[in-house]
């Protein structure tokens, strides 16, 4: 059986890649994709932990959480894509550098 730590290391690598690309990429869609990457890294960790604790086959908390995360990610994708389309329409650009209206 593959040890849990392997999954966790893979999850950490995926999450790290997601975080780094979230910070350094400029295209909003790419950033959006890196968010998905981080979410799925977390899902992987959940599933791995669930596998670790589920010795009697009655603990499924981790898997339930994963389902929740997927649902939330789907909703977020719907809203996020809508926002991205609006930004594209208003700015004629998807460069995140130009979205700085939070500062007066």
């Amino acid at each position, binding site marked *: 059986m593959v040890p849990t730590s392997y999954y966790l290391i893979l999850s950490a690598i995926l999450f790290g890649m997601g*975080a780094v690309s*979230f*910070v*350094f990429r*400029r295209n909003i869609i790419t950033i959006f994709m890196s968010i998905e990457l981080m979410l799925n890294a977390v899902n992987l960790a959940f599933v791995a932990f669930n596998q670790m604790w589920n010795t009697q086959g009655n603990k499924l908390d981790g898997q339930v959480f994963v389902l929740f995360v997927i649902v939330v990610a789907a909703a977020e994708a719907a809203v996020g894509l809508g926002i991205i389309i609006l930004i594209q329409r208003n700015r004629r650009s998807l460069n*995140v*550098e130009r*979205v*700085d*209206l*939070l*500062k*007066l």
Partner: protein
Amino acid sequence: MPILEQLWIIPLLPLLGSAINGLFGAKWPNKAVSSVALGSTGLSFLFALEAVREFVYVRHGELFRKEFFDWIVVPDFLHGGNWFRAGFDLQMDQLTVVMVLVVTGVGFLIHIYSTGYMAHEGGYYRFFSYLNLFMFFMLILVLAANYVLLFVGWEGVGLSSYLLIGFYFLKKSASDAGKKAFIVNRIGDFGFMLGMFLLFRTFGTLDFTAVFAKAGPLPAEAMGQFGTITVACLLLFMGACGKSAQLPLYVWLPDAMEGPTPVSALIHAATMVTAGVYVVARSHVLFTHAPTAMLVVAIVGCATAFFAATIGLVQRDIKRVLAYSTVSQLGYMFLGCGVGAFGAGIFHLMTHAFFKALLFLASGSVIHAMGGEQDMLKMGGLSKKIKYTYWTMLMATLAIAGFPPLAGFFSKDSILYSAFQSEHGGHALYAVGLITALLTSFYMFRLMFLTFHGKPRYDEHHVHVHESPWSMLGPLVILAVLSVIGGWVAAPALWGGEDHFANFLAPIFGSGEAAAGLSEAAAHQLELTLAVVAIVAALIGLGVAFWLYLKQPGKPEQLAKSLKGAYTTLSNKYYVDELYAAAIVNPLVWISTNVLWKVVDVGVIDGAVNGVAEGATAVGDKVRHTQSGNTRSYAVWVVVGALVVIAIIFWPAIRPALGMVR
């Protein structure tokens, strides 16, 4: 003794009247306002009469003193009892009797007069509210049984005086005069408070009876010795100088004439300004222990009397003449007190209250008749048109000039007599007093002749001279009667009989005013001689005024031209206001502007406030760069925060360093 036991009711009634008028009077008709004001002071006067009757006939002149409630109490935890106590204690003795009757009696008359005089003025309710408030504080002042409560009244009358001088507060000169009165009085009050502190330090109490009982047995301090009592007396006298407009603090009183005329009569002639004399007389036990202080009182009083009389010679404003005359007469009272004749000083206080209130009220009637004109050079020949005013004012003038048998003659004479023969007095004091009497007679008849005699110098087509209503004339007549007969209680002394007034006050001041080293017959001989001299002086004053202002109408101007230096000095009041402005006011203003304002206020206070604000701005300026508005930088912060959390969780070594000991 129902009223005497409830002595508080006498001052409380005017306070009630003041509160009612002040709170609700604005919407009431004048009649309602004046009936509240008159009712409260009139009742107060009646209660005062009844209290005096009980004092004289039931208690037979024995001091009445009652502690109504504690006001300030500091318990002495070491020895028990009270370390300091100032209570609402009122007392009634012979001196209080005189003061209370003068204050409520003359006050009531002036209230009646005011209903006529103020009838067409705005702020009718405000005027009576202030006037009643004044009555309350003045009664507290004279009824108080300790220095602290007296000081409450003392400050309160100052407040009412300020409010009433500045009654026409839209006029700049009036509001300035109010401020001037208040500030100059504050200088005197400073001394008064220091005097109280010193008395408390020395005697451990501020109750009159206790202080005087403790001071009585002490040996009198020598002349020229500045012991505790002398210093305390001088400090108290400093307060008296402020309140009673003596040199060098008299400057506020002439300006106080900006107030309505009844105010000048009540506060700035008859009652409040005599508070200083009252305090000196009340503290006579202390003063007799301090000959140096007595000498200072006598000299200041004498100098003020002369000084103010000379200024009064050339004033053109009818009320200003009377104002300087008041300052001068107050100087007489202090002269009397200073030479040890406290009874004579208080006697003059009483007669002066009658005739000076009358003079002011009559001058108010003249001003009323002239439609607001106050310049005597624009009057003349009024005697036929306003007869009642003329005759009553003539009585007051004869009284103040010292013609027998009017009130002023007896009181002034007894002061001059004391100044001449008393061990505290001296012939120099007497001489100056006598010259002042001559000057008084001169300037008063100058006023009368300029106002009432000669040819009219006003435009008769525009000014319709009319006699005042009876609400104004009634008080004039009553005061005129009092000015005539008010001195008769002391009259028999002149031909060898009893001085009833002095006898009445004897329980307080003692009867030790007998001529030193003179037999009784010689003393009466001396008194008669001095009286004749005083009458001659008054006649000379009258004669000179008659000659200058009726016989030779052009002469005064010639005199003024030939004595130009003296005349301008006098008409500019010896440049005292200018001197004070140059020596005190302007330096204070300069320091306030250039140091307190531009350095302390702008530099230190504003600097501190602005510095804090600028510091916050500077910090914010640096910190705001963290808020770039750029989404990615926020993301970086989120990641950094997450990393920090992870570091804290997974790095046990740093946990103790952060104080998170588990």
